[in-house]
């Protein structure tokens, strides 16, 4: 085998002209084996979740090539449960009936957002030139939601601590928003992996779709309010856009302190 400075090497490394003495060979880093074992079609739930976290590329490939919707249902079901768990923590801010309303609203709201945006994801992925199947897109979207919800569950203890310490609806709302966006940023990376797997470079339409999905999910939080605070009715009597609602919440709190 040719060494880097072996004269017989086709591309010998030139000696370092700044230092005197014999040329130094670069430090050798042992190459880690790349695990590319495909995910078995009958893989158990924990294995699927482990793959989602550790080898998302393998999961995305499996979702694209899956001949059944088992993985999609598994990931979707897990996402709903994880979001419900996070919702319980959200509900602890107000307590009372919010302990069951918040998880219900968060799970169903996320599901509704996915259903609203699923047809456009299929078309937008196709517009990018990807040869996708509806099942494959559904699977990846379930994985996006599952990864987002998994991260939210990870944030849950932090949220709980703040929920017990603060009375400010605006602050807690901002915290949830921040965590949702962080979770979603990780989740939406799976769409990029899907495009890589399908060997598609054009990401423009997928980015536009990601923007639409983020907006829909944010509006969903306003459409299903109150999720964090309390109100006389389970659902809002008046329609608002999320930016207006947030502004009202923040200015309302600031006004009440005056």
């Amino acid at each position, binding site marked *: 085998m040719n060494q880097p400075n072996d004269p017989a090497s086709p591309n010998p490394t030139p000696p370092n002209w700044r230092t005197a003495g014999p040329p130094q060979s670069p430090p050798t880093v042992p190459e880690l084996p790349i695990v590319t074992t495909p995910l078995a079609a009958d893989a158990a739930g924990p294995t699927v979740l482990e793959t989602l976290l550790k080898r998302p590329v393998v999961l995305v490939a499996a979702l694209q090539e899956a001949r059944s919707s088992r993985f999609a249902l598994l990931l979707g079901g897990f996402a709903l449960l994880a979001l419900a768990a996070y919702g319980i923590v959200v509900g602890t801010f107000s307590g009372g009936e919010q302990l069951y309303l918040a998880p219900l609203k968060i799970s169903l709201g996320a599901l509704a957002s996915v259903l609203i945006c699923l047809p*456009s994801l299929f*078309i937008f992925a196709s*517009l990018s030139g990807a040869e996708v199947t509806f099942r494959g897109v559904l699977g990846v979207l379930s994985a996006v939601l599952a990864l987002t919800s998994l991260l939210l569950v990870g944030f849950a203890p932090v949220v709980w601590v703040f929920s017990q310490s603060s009375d400010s609806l605006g602050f807690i709302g901002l915290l949830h928003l921040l965590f949702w966006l962080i979770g979603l940023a990780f989740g939406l990376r799976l769409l990029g992996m899907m495009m890589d797997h399908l060997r598609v470079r054009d990401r423009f339409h997928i980015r536009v779709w990601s923007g639409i999905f983020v907006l829909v999910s944010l509006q969903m939080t306003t459409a299903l309010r109150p999720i964090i605070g309390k109100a006389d009715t389970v659902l809002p009597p*008046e*329609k*608002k856009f999320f930016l207006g609602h947030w502004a009202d919440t923040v200015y309302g709190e600031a006004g009440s302190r005056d």
Partner: protein
Amino acid sequence: MNHVHRLLTLCRGDSEAMVPWLEERDSRWLVTCAVVITLGCALYGGAVGLWRAPIQAAYTAVKMPLLIFLTCGGNALLNGLLAQVLGAGLSFRQSAISILMSFTLASLILAALTPVALFVLVNAPSLGSAERGTGHSVTMLTDVLFIAYAGVVANGRLLRLLTRICTTPEAAKRVFWSWLAGNLFLGAQLSWILRPFIGTPGLPVQFLRDDPLRGTFYEAVFGAAKNLLF
């Protein structure tokens, strides 16, 4: 290749696969395109009109595909002539199918965005609320954005297809811009005649406004600009 696969190929913009479709003498693909335009635009139109009233939704669901077909039909001869005069080497039939495929893609995109449009509608201030002006503006702005996106993507794909089938890339560009200008010019006036699509609050729900052929889109734009500036 069945027609569902063809629609997906159309979405992917695989021009190479689309070229043989323009040579077909069979009209089934043409019919599929017409059906997709009808259903896609009707779905989206229904969502647009629903903010004003259910009957307005039904009217808009009829008028949106009608607008597409009237624009295509009204310009079919002109577009075919332009394609030949500008050296594209396309027959009348090939020109018509190319344009119809572009509108089919736009309709598919609009149909896919219909659930999002409905979600916006559900969240927009309703006609009975004090903020109905905001509701109208939000509905209109969303529609403009969605239709513009669908239009830009569909025309981008049309240009790509033309570049592949025309004799030279320059000829493809000339034909594309001339078609676009003609379709926009006629389409804008037809949309003026077929108004209302969303339905202005305070005005009655109608299929067409009283005396729809009075005035033009361009006069209205000129009048609005004059009011704004002077």
